[in-house]
């Protein structure tokens, strides 16, 4: 009577698969330590065709040795993999698609590989599942996109597989736990094998194999912005942000993007903002990537605390001491509670960041026709989180400006985009219609790839001025406010001058004069640091920049 039920389902499929893989892999290892020379055969033994595989590729830290080894495996042994990976950054990440080792891809960000990615998608070599936000991808690691095999990178391991991640933890815990808790095979490449790790960041029980890489894992210095290339126009925009947004709303808790526009703001905090008497009144608590351009603001005591997720160089980069005053740097254990991930990242009040294209509703995208790059964490930061409530001045003031109907007071998170009206090669940032629509068709995506939705955006800053969308009462006003700061782009030239003048009267459009910003001071002399070397000097010699940024 129970016969049928008994044969219907086997409950230890994953466990048995795991054991079989470990057994096959053990032939190429001494204990947990894989013999480096046999890494390709080892991968061919533990990975099965069609597996979901995660190659750790975060903003900065990359399991590059394992990635390039995977690209050397035979397609007889391994093919049609489904890669689930946050950041496609290195050539081997796409080599595996070019040669047929992998076929399907779920990812967040493709950066410098964006052009090649678009080509491979066009050739049918990559089937894109989706361009995710980091939160969505890591959350789905715990649901339906759990890797069968994950590659991670760590600083050191011992013979039991205990891992020390060094100064650079980033997203390792999320990958490790999603994989290990669902009988996946976890392979770590480490810079060195040691008798005893300095600190156990990942317990050996969760780690299947380790291999000592021939070179320390690759670190992409994506947060290093050389102050030497910040322009006067960026300084001008930074001045407008400080007066028109930070000072006006009393913004004390915020997140910055990683572009040069926000770097310029960081670098005039100890000069321009300080002279305006804003120290202690704005930008005290920041949730940011570890951008070295924050060093002067930190060292001068302008910024009190920083919360960030990783560091840039193997020497500890920014953490080498420049952030020694950081009061609050929790280890990232978001991953222990995946449901919390979606709440933790957008913890902070205000986002300010850049983009490539903006339309007349204020929707913005970094995906354009020839390039698929994805958005990283921006969509999460750059959205109103309606569950949040608190009494900060900025939140309440923005809420009052929005004037929602009803009696109940309600705040509003400030979401600010800062852009120049024209980008590289005189391509206008402002467009009547985003390329994202075209991309949606070309790549058969369920949604146009929009980074920040227009209705989440509160302010738009350009070199022309600031559009305050909270003060726009109709879609028509919103459109004209955007045209009003769109300068000499075709979108800007089509402005209704009378309406823009009216919007300026009510503060929905503000130009430099209206903001009390004197354009004559918009020079690079305002930057607290004008070179990487200046940053080193600010840090008292503790900041050790990546070599490619040096000029001494």
């Amino acid at each position, binding site marked *: 009577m129970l016969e049928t039920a008994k044969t219907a389902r086997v409950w230890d499929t994953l466990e048995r698969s795991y054991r079989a893989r470990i057994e096959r892999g053990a032939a190429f290892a001494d204990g947990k330590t894989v013999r480096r020379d046999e890494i390709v055969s080892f991968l061919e033994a533990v990975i099965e065709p069609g597996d979901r595989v995660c190659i750790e590729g975060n903003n900065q830290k990359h399991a590059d040795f394992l990635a390039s080894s995977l690209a050397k495996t035979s397609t007889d042994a391994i093919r049609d993999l489904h890669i689930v990976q946050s950041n496609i950054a290195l050539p081997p990440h796409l080599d595996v698609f070019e040669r047929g080792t992998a076929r399907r891809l779920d990812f967040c960000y493709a950066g410098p590989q964006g052009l090649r990615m678009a080509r491979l998608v066009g050739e049918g070599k990559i089937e894109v599942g989706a361009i995710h936000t980091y939160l969505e991808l890591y959350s789905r690691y715990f649901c339906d996109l759990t890797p069968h095999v994950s590659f991670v990178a760590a600083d050191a391991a011992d013979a039991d597989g205990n891992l020390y991640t060094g100064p650079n933890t980033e997203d390792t815990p999320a990958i490790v736990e999603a994989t290990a808790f669902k009988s996946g095979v976890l392979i770590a490449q480490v810079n060195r094998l040691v008798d005893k790790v300095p600190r156990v960041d990942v317990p050996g029980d969760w780690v299947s194999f380790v291999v000592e890489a021939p070179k320390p894992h690759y670190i992409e210095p994506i947060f290093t912005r050389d102050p030497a290339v910040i322009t006067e126009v960026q300084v001008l925009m930074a001045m407008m942000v400080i007066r028109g947004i930070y000072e006006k709303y009393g913004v004390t808790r915020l997140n910055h993007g990683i572009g040069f526009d926000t770097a310029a703001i960081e670098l005039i905090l100890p000069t321009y903002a300080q*002279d305006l008497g804003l120290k202690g009144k704005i930008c005290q608590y920041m949730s940011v990537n570890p951008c070295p351009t924050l060093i002067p603001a930190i060292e001068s005591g302008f910024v009190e605390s920083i919360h960030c997720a990783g560091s840039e160089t193997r020497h500890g980069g920014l953490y080498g001491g420049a952030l020694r005053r950081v009061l609050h740097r929790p280890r990232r254990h978001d991953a222990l509670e995946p449901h919390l991930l979606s709440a933790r990242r957008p913890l902070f009040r205000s986002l300010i960041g850049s983009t490539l294209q903006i339309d007349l509703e204020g929707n913005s995208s970094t995906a354009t026709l020839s390039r698929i790059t994805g958005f990283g964490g921006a969509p999460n930061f750059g959205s109103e989180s309606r569950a949040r409530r608190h009494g900060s001045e900025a939140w309440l003031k923005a809420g009052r400006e929005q004037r929602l109907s009803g009696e109940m007071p309600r705040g509003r998170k400030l979401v600010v985009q800062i852009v120049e009206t024209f980008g590289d090669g005189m391509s206008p940032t402002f467009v009547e219609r985003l390329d994202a629509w075209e991309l949606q068709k070309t790549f058969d995506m369920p949604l146009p790839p929009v980074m920040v939705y227009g209705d989440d955006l509160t302010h738009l800053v350009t070199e022309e001025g600031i559009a305050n969308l909270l003060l726009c009462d109709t879609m028509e006003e919103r459109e004209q406010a955007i045209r009003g700061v769109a300068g000499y782009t075709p979108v800007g030239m089509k402005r209704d001058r009378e309406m823009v003048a009216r919007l300026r009267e009510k503060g929905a459009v503000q130009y430099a004069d209206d903001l009390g910003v004197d354009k004559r*001071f918009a020079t690079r*002399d305002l930057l607290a640091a004008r070179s990487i070397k200046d940053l*080193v000097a600010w840090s008292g010699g503790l900041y050790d920049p990546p070599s490619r940024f*040096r000029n*001494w």
Partner: protein
Amino acid sequence: MRVARHSFYEATARKRIDGLLDAGSFREFCGPAARIVSPHLPALGMPVAFDDGVVVGEGTIDGRPVLVAAQEGGFMGGAVGEVHGAKITGLLERALDVKPDAAILLLDTGGVRLHEANAGLVAMGEIQRAALSARHAGVPVIVAIGGKNGCYGGMSIVARSCDWIVASEEGRLSISGPEVIETVEGIEEFDAQDRALVWRTMGAKHRRLIGEIDALVADDVEAFRTAILGFVGRPRPLDLDALEAEHEMLSRRLERFWDCADGRDVWARLGVNDPASVPALDAAGFNGLVDALSGGRP
């Protein structure tokens, strides 16, 4: 807003001259209003500059008459074309006529301008000859290097044909660019992305330590002015004995260091206790080290 220092590295050629000379003393020759532009660039679809990327003229430094040329590194990498080169040559030849207390060349260049390659190469030969003529006439020729392009190609030969070289730590002085070496000989020969290596091989500190340049200063226009002023009116001998002494210095360098693979090895052999710390030293700290080494110049 307070500005702590005026960066030489960031300044344009005109700003460098402004900072170097006595206020209001500069008189430009063949300035932008004359529109003496490259006759070759328009055919290549390239924009021209009204001064062809070099500012030449005369003025005073601490009251002393000098001739000065400043290359604009922002225009075509400070590269030497026909007009650009002729302006510098003419300026140096003027030294024979007016006998100033110095001729000062603020170099910021990748060398020859490929878009007018043959004219640029021959022009550098002419600049060099004119510089040597000025020297033979007793006018010291002083070079300053501290811009984004460093001083490369044929102009690195010109620089070392002058009396004195002042450079900031940001300065580089070499004949081949690291990218060229990497492209031709491979990344094993030279990893051009490794900027620390670039500076250990071609940077001003290394050049000061091996005796290729005469003063290292901080990246500050005022510091350049002070150092340059120290060489105004001080020609170096250029006779046969001086050439023999130079030959002895260079031969000894090759004997001592030819087997060194890295600048750090050279510095260690020069008696620097902690070569790894050299790149991080500021100008004052570095000059202290140079003074402490026996004789200063090897």
